[in-house]
């Protein structure tokens, strides 16, 4: 087998094992829940009926030993059955599906903003190492990393909406507008596709504050990571040679320094993703953003366990898949990884 293919295959096998492990963790957590699911599901009257409880347990496999129940759980998961939300009694998967596009839109825009700003600031700081600009950026990065996202959301909404009124107060779209015809579920993309400029403007305005709040936390990490990655390559002889033969500074930075720093910068992408998803859980509710973060918050507040477990499972799966993709990309940009 070619080393490249073997590299991907090995990562894929690890991914599958990891996914199994994740389902095992969520299974253990949901199986350990105190309380009686049969009585909860049957309601107060049928719940008193011993016969009905026994039948329910038997039908749902709850009378079986734990390993067998895990297999049932896995089987259900494969069929997309994550259980029913205790609050609404609708399937968790269905609820997740309605909330996912909003979070995807928010997460992607935050990572784009944080990535662009973070890499630029990080390179700038590295090039001005130990000078005033570097120190200022250090304070700003650490400031962003230290700020509780939920607090920043509250303050920015108070200032941007309540006090100066530049931004809308929450949600994804002006209530007077109709959502653009659904293609991707991302309002900005759908509005672009259907050339609905009013909806596009409104969607962007609604996206601005939550994006900035989520990016604020991540941009510090990316900037500091980029700074380190750049500092590690910038003293190489070939960089000096590039400068010496008179190449323009921008050519050297983009073509030589960033190219060399790219593999290690890719790794931060996984962290950025985790940061944005974590932030979404804490922030979406404040912006009444109808995403899985707000859903997780509501589920946590009401202790709706199947929903919380569903969100946890979903986010973990997305997260490991993103890391898998990052790993593979890492192998693509850095050939040494494929062989090691």
């Amino acid at each position: 087998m070619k080393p490249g293919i073997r590299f991907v295959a090995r990562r894929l096998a690890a991914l599958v094992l990891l996914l199994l492990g994740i389902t095992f963790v969520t299974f253990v957590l949901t199986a350990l829940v105190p309380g009686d699911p049969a009585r909860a599901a049957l309601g107060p009257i049928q719940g008193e009926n011993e016969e009905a409880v026994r039948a329910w347990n038997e039908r749902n496999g709850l009378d079986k030993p734990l390993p067998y129940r895990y297999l049932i759980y896995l089987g259900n998961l494969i069929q997309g059955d994550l259980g029913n939300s205790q609050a609404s009694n609708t399937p968790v998967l269905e609820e997740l599906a309605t909330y996912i596009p909003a979070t995807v839109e928010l997460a992607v825009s935050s990572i784009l903003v944080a990535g662009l700003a973070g890499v630029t600031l990080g390179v700038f700081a590295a090039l001005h190492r130990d000078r005033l600009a570097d120190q200022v950026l250090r304070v700003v990065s650490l400031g962003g990393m230290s700020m509780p996202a939920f607090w920043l959301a509250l303050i920015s909404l108070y200032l941007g909406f309540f006090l100066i009124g530049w931004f809308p107060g929450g949600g994804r779209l002006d209530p007077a507008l109709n959502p653009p015809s659904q293609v991707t579920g991302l309002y900005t993309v759908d509005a672009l596709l259907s050339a609905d400029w009013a909806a596009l403007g409104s969607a962007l305005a609604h996206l601005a504050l939550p994006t900035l709040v989520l990016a604020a936390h991540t941009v510090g990490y990316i900037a500091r990571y980029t700074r380190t990655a750049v500092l590690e390559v910038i003293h190489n002889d070939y960089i000096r040679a590039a400068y010496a033969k008179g190449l323009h500074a921008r050519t050297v930075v983009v073509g030589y320094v960033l190219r060399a720093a790219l593999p290690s910068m890719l790794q931060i992408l996984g962290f950025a993703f985790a940061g944005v998803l974590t932030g979404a859980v804490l922030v979406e509710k404040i912006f009444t953003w109808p995403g899985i973060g707000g859903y997780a918050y509501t589920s946590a507040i009401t202790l709706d366990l199947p929903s919380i477990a569903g969100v946890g499972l979903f986010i973990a799966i997305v997260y490991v898949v993103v890391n898998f993709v990052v790993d593979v990309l890492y192998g693509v940009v850095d050939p040494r990884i494929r062989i090691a």
Partner: protein
Amino acid sequence: MNILSRRVLPRSKPLTVIAVTVIAIWLLVALLAPVLAPGDPLSQDGTPFTAPSGAHWFGTDELGRDVLSRVIYGARLSLPLALLLVVLSALIGGTLGALAGFLRGPVDGVLMRICDLLFAFPGIVLAMVVAATLGPGITNAVLALVLISWPWYARIVRGLVVSLGEAEYVTARRLLGASTWRALLDDVLPNIVGPILVLATLDLGGAVLLLSGLSFLGLGAQAPVAEWGSMVSHGTEYFQHWWLGLFPGLAIFTVVLAFNFVGDALRDVFDPHTGRAHG
């Protein structure tokens, strides 16, 4: 600590000094809360929603409680719990990591796979699931966060023990007849204390953030306890009364920022790649 005083203090930057001062002030606030607080953090004898004024510097909340007193008493909860969280994680993770690095073989393999698995969840999401499963409450919140934090220590300590175990001076010591445990205690342990201290300091800010995050989600401290995260959570419900959320959030921010600055300075000292050490 010798290495710290020798290498950090002479070239300590004003920012690090400010950060240490801020931490010291917060520790004092936590210690002296009953003396410093103008009132009882739970007493509801103010007028609800009074804006900040001479009588109530930080205003009053929806039940007429003095926000300043609640912020001050909040330090008594957040700081010790963050410390407890970090100490527990470092102890559990450090011990397991040292065992894995020392015993190697299947123990090592299993433990590292468990770590990989826990790394697969974004921190607060797993903590949220665990805390919700255990039931809301500050003790369960700390337990949930220990569960997600210890693998970081385990992985780093394991790496250190493995690399130190192969160091020549350890081999020499073994050849001179020292038992493996002696070597571990005398030669390896002193060399991993420094890095663990740095890691723990770096972690303190994050611990405060995570704890307040869980409380914000309603899974940590329960009413009527004065806790910064849950205070901000109440602030989001009474949006126009900005002082409810602003001040407890500011408390979290200053504490975390100060810890992060100190941790950052320490990391520079211990990491030669990014360090600013001259020479």
